[in-house]
């Protein structure tokens, strides 16, 4: 699951609001861990270094300068897309307009 959207820092959330969101993240992470499906995950900092084109043009950006940013991801093990969709219901930040993208790791037959 990849989390895309706005960063907390750009939304001016109050400390109270951040705490309640974080508690939802705890609860969600705990639930996945207990179910034994959590394989990893990271939160990403809001700094971006972008390298584009054959000239390898480099730009440094922050989350405030882009429309959407990948904020982090969870790696989980599940049967199929539907099973992950079910798990993704608990993502805490839908109300901020943020998105969960479900992607599957490609497995090659040997």
């Amino acid at each position: 699951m990849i989390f895309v959207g706005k960063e907390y820092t750009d939304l001016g959330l109050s400390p109270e609001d951040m705490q309640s969101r974080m508690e939802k993240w705890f609860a969600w992470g705990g639930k996945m861990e207990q179910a034994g499906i959590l394989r990893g995950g990271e939160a990403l900092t809001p700094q971006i270094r972008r390298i584009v084109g054959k000239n390898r043009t480099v730009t440094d950006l922050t989350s405030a300068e882009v429309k959407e940013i990948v904020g982090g991801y969870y790696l989980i093990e599940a049967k199929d897309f539907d099973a992950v969709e079910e798990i993704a219901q608990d993502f805490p930040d839908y109300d901020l307009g943020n998105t969960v993208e479900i992607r599957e790791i490609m497995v090659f037959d040997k």
Partner: protein
Amino acid sequence: MENKLVDHLFRHHSGKMVSVLTRIFGLQHLDIIEDAVQDTFIKASLSWRKEQPKHPEAWLTKAAKNRVLDIFRTLKSQKNNLPDITQGTDAIAINELFLDSEIEDAQLRMIFTACHPKLDPRDRISFALKTVSGFSTKEIASALLTKDETIKKRLMRARKAIHKSDIQFHIPQGKDLPMRLESVMEVLYLIFNEGFHSNSKTQLIREDLCSEAMRLCKLLLKHKQTRLPECYALFALMCFHSARLEAKTSVDNEVLDLKQQDRALWHFPLIQLGNTMMHKAVETDDFSCYHYEAAIAAEHLKARTFEDTNWSKILKWYEALHQLQPMPSHLLTMAVICIQNKDYSKADTYFKQLRPEDLEQRAYLYYAAKADYSMDTNDKKNAIKSIDKALQTVTNNLEKDFLLKKKADWLKNF
């Protein structure tokens, strides 16, 4: 994954850290400080997702300390004359400022700053809620039932006043202290009342404001210079009122008056705490209006049923309160109590001291009381006349329905 965090940990910690950092860097850098503190919460909310620290509060404090160094670098690059805090004795001194007792001291300084006479009284509440209590502008706006923009303007104005008058970040000493403390208590009283008396807010916002006012009042009581009888009285008053907070609204979020409240829902431990505070408040003979207001609230709580209320005693306290702080609303209340007590001649003396226009938009309360008075003294004609006047001036729909129903009852029994 650990269990839940302490309620309001972030909000309270924000107030603490903004205060401590302001003590280190001064009020002129408040903007940078507030941003920096906000940053530590963002950092926490991201990194704690993976693993929650064993001691969240200590983690936050450490993060704030690290931010001190960041801020210092920022300020240094702006060519400010600052001591080198990264090493030596200054660094030790800064560590000490993060001790619990020093954090409380810093918070008190912030409260006193918020209540400085150079700040517009309306701006004081917003500024206190923002800096000391860690509310966002949006939260303040919804708590005070105003627009986001209005709060932003108030905060800007408060900041400008602080810069312009070069207000110092300290607890005033000597003869400045009593006056400023009065203003501090008034702000806490107003924050509490915003929570307790507003009818249109959710229970949650009401509780937030009331408990915030109590938390700050407790800070005053912890400090030896501000531990005064009137502070104890104010805290007692808050305890007595809070004890009734839950009973104050019905299941449908309707406001219930004292007559309708389920007294079994009153919170006994808070009443007890209020009593303890009240004992401390009356150790000297110097009584403030908070003493009398607390005494009135306590008297209401003593009655097992509404009918048991000792109105003569309440009237006595109101008289004392009115003498100390004359207000038209006190006169009206006293008139209503006399009607309740069937002492009509005394009620009349209070009515005679009052003009309905003194009560401004609440003039309808005068007419409604006058109507009850006439009805009880068998003057039905004037009773109807007065209730019609009340109906002409009332704006709140709930109150209007109440009056219409009363009038209909009276007409039926004509």
